[in-house]
């Protein structure tokens, strides 16, 4: 990289790069906040982070730029995606506010804070940019290493301890110790008999030809969906698809058709047409 990249007066190239990529970063940040699905938010954030990595490089922080891509976008965002998958990738959040006045307060605080920050930066006398050319003379990584292992060696050691603690903490939080012997199948069936519910196996989910059917509730004889037929996790995530309305419509059409065959009552043309299509 050339000296002038980090100098006070930046090149036109950098200005162009700033305005283009800066816009991308702001759009990414905004969509992180306003996307309904967590997956989309995560992908937008990853985009913003890559833009930031480029800015790091542009500001002479070569090591940090690479680390930003490898560690942040590569590892941390992937971790986010894993958790999103675990919690339910297709679940869409409602953006409707439930706490009274929260949104207005948040906007007020956000705008106020932003204005204050902007005012503060504008007010500060930030005219003199030294550039990192001098500091990076022996190479950016070497310079960082010299600082980390001399001046910041204690902070460095402590962050090491922090990382280990975090790893152990994550294990403690997510690990669930089995404190009792798991019930055998016989004991489970005996318990079911004792409690007097669901003696037979749970009913199978319903069938819908166009999809894998595990997310579709089976219908009871009267046409209403049965909660028992789908997995609890899907129910909790709100990922069930209710096809009962359609099934009921089909049922009604079938009845009409049979009545028509038996020539009991005159049938409306629209229904008749649809019934004929279905019969073909």
């Amino acid at each position, binding site marked *: 990289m050339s000296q002038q990249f980090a100098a006070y007066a930046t090149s036109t190239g950098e200005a162009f790069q700033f305005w283009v990529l800066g816009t991308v970063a702001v759009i990414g940040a905004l969509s992180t906040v306003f996307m309904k699905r967590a997956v989309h938010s995560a992908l937008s954030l990853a985009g913003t982070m890559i833009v930031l990595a480029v800015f790091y490089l542009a500001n002479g922080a070569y090591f940090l730029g690479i680390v930003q891509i490898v560690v942040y976008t590569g590892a941390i965002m992937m971790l986010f995606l894993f958790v999103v998958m675990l919690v339910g990738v297709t679940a869409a*959040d409602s953006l409707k506010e439930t706490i009274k006045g929260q949104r207005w307060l948040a906007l007020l605080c*956000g705008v106020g804070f932003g204005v204050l920050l902007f005012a503060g930066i504008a007010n500060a006398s930030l005219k003199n940019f030294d550039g990192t050319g001098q500091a990076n003379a022996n190479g950016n990584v070497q310079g960082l290493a010299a600082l980390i292992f001399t001046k910041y060696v204690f902070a460095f050691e402590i962050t090491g301890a922090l990382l280990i603690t975090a790893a152990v903490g994550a294990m403690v939080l997510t690990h669930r110790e089995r404190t009792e012997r798991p019930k055998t199948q016989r004991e489970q069936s005996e318990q079911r008999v004792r409690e007097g519910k669901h003696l037979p196996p749970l009913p199978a989910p319903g069938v819908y030809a166009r999809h894998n059917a595990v997310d579709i509730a089976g219908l009871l004889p009267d046409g209403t969906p049965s909660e028992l037929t789908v997995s609890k996790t899907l129910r909790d995530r709100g990922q069930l698809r209710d096809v009962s309305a359609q099934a009921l419509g089909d049922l009604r059409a079938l009845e009409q058709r049979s009545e028509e065959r038996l020539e009991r009552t005159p049938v409306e043309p629209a229904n008749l047409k649809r019934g004929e299509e279905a019969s073909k």
Partner: protein
Amino acid sequence: MNPVYYLYLAALLFTIGATGVLIRRNAIVVFMCIELMLNACNLAFVVFSRMHGNLDGQIIAFFTMVVAAAEVVVGLAIIVSLFRTRHSASVDDASLMKL
């Protein structure tokens, strides 16, 4: 172009992240917004490093990244165990801290 515009960008990103924390209910998205705020700070540190012509700002950004990594690991673990017990990742559902 004056590099001070990078600072304006960092302030803007920080504010967006903070507002997101306040508005979103999904704990995972809230976490992402916090990451966004941290990244905005990192950008500011890197720009300060350039401004003063030494590498201390970059060191701070580096440490921020390490701490952020640790925080993400623990935070996501908390979210996972919360989801296991409550079958929900909404921060509003964990509202037992009231009378």
